């Protein structure tokens, strides 16, 4: 017990962590917006944002201010109550998702045995938010986007779970810290060497679950205007956007912890290795976005049900047999 405040120490840690995470998520949102636009620019042989600040570094701040300043409009005929609850439902689980992630040897907000399960459970809620947003907008593009989001997330959640399960079986634990400390400092001691198939499946499914190109069908701008968030203005859209970036960081952080050795590194293990790996994966995600064209919807579903799911099952079986031997 902490006498001056009367707050239990565990609760205090979590409150502190939540405050820090809010800052982390917001800051990362800004950095990622800038990175995304710069990476997109350079891949398309143009400089990207250049006007606001040196090399356009203040561009995301200007973007954020613009979003905050815009009027919030509820479309006529929309289910007003659900329409404004949806962005909140989309963003609220983000904080829970970050709690069990081991950023460094001691830098974990909440050490828990079921950490991996916690992330998987709360990550699923995002889809519900997309559905509600698409439904309550009373707009055919939004509804089509929501329908796509449902089919896509259901299809890709299963191989993702199976890929993660292979690692969990290998370590006999759902605690991310245990899994990280079970891996060595050098790249050949990381899980990606033992479980390359699981990593491949995980990363493809993570792209689909976060609605990133080439799997960005729920918001496909060239077909559906903006999909499920067509009708959202200002911060309504901004919160969806922030939640998407936060989810990207979470899936990359989980990939880092599960497959890339987490905070382990050849020299001076610590939080910096974790962040470097997470940002490398994020850059790969952006690189994918500007490299691959969007898949067609039947291709998307076929890829999951006919290829990734059987592959994940075989991978899980082989892992089980090897673990038992």
């Amino acid at each position: 017990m902490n006498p001056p405040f009367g707050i239990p120490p565990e609760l205090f840690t979590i409150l502190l962590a939540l405050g820090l995470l809010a800052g982390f998520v917001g800051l990362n949102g800004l950095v990622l917006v800038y990175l995304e636009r710069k990476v997109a620019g350079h891949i398309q042989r143009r400089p990207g944002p250049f006007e606001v600040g040196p090399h356009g570094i203040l561009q995301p701040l200007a973007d954020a201010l613009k979003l905050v300043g815009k009027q919030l409009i509820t479309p006529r005929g929309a289910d007003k109550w659900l329409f404004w609850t949806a962005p909140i439902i989309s963003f609220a689980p983000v904080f829970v998702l970050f709690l069990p992630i081991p950023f460094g040897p001691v830098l974990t907000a909440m050490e828990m045995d079921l950490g991996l399960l916690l992330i998987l459970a709360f990550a699923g809620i995002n889809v519900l938010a997309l559905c509600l947003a698409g439904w309550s907008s009373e707009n055919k593009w939004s509804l089509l986007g929501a329908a796509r989001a449902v089919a896509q997330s259901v299809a890709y959640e299963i191989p993702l779970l199976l890929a993660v399960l292979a690692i969990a079986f290998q370590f006999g634990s759902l605690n991310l810290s245990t899994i990280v400390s079970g891996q060595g400092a050098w790249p050949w001691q990381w899980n990606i060497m033992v479980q390359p198939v699981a990593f491949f499946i995980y990363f493809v499914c993570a792209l689909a679950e976060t609605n990133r190109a080439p799997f960005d069908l729920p918001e496909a701008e060239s077909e559906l205007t903006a999909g499920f968030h067509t009708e959202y203005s200002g911060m309504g859209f901004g919160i969806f956007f922030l939640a998407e970036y936060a989810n990207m960081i979470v899936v990359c952080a989980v990939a880092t912890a599960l497959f890339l050795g987490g905070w382990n590194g050849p020299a001076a293990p610590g939080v910096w290795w974790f962040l470097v790996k997470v940002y490398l994966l994020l850059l790969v995600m952006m690189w994918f976005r500007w490299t691959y064209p969007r898949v067609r919807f039947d291709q998307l579903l076929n890829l999951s049900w006919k290829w990734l799911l059987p592959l994940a099952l075989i991978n899980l079986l082989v892992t089980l047999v090897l673990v038992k031997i």
Partner: protein
Amino acid sequence: METLAYVAFGVYTTIILFGGLMAVFSRNLVRALVGLALTLFGVAGCYLLMAAPFMALMQILIYVAAVSIMIFFAIMLTKPPVGAEEQPGRPWWVVAGCIVAALAPTMLIARVLHVQPLVSHEHPTEIVLMDLGQTFIEPYFLAFELISVILTVAMAGAVLLAFERRQGQ
């Protein structure tokens, strides 16, 4: 900590009741679904209070996320335009009948529990996940397997129905 637990229990029950009422009284199917999801979320909180975090997380993973989305999918497949599913109000005797039907089992269970209280632990103890798994594959093996068989049959039936409808067109 004891008071904190009571506060948490109060919060969870409020969420459950509010969600339940919303699910029952909403004229709009999607709003009813949101109420249901809220209730399931509150139940997950109650599992957490009973020191069963695994159950709580599974409840969220399966019910709040997967099952709700499945129901949403079902609603979407039968979609009338938003607002068009409003039904005219029901006559008072239907409402009264519903209340009686809801109260009767509640009163019965409350009476039984009052006369013969269930034996329960003073404080919940967390069961190790390994033991839970062991119980599934040892004493309750048959029940566990039967459930998987039922699920497989249900899934095969759904696929079959889908294919029959497609051929029928």
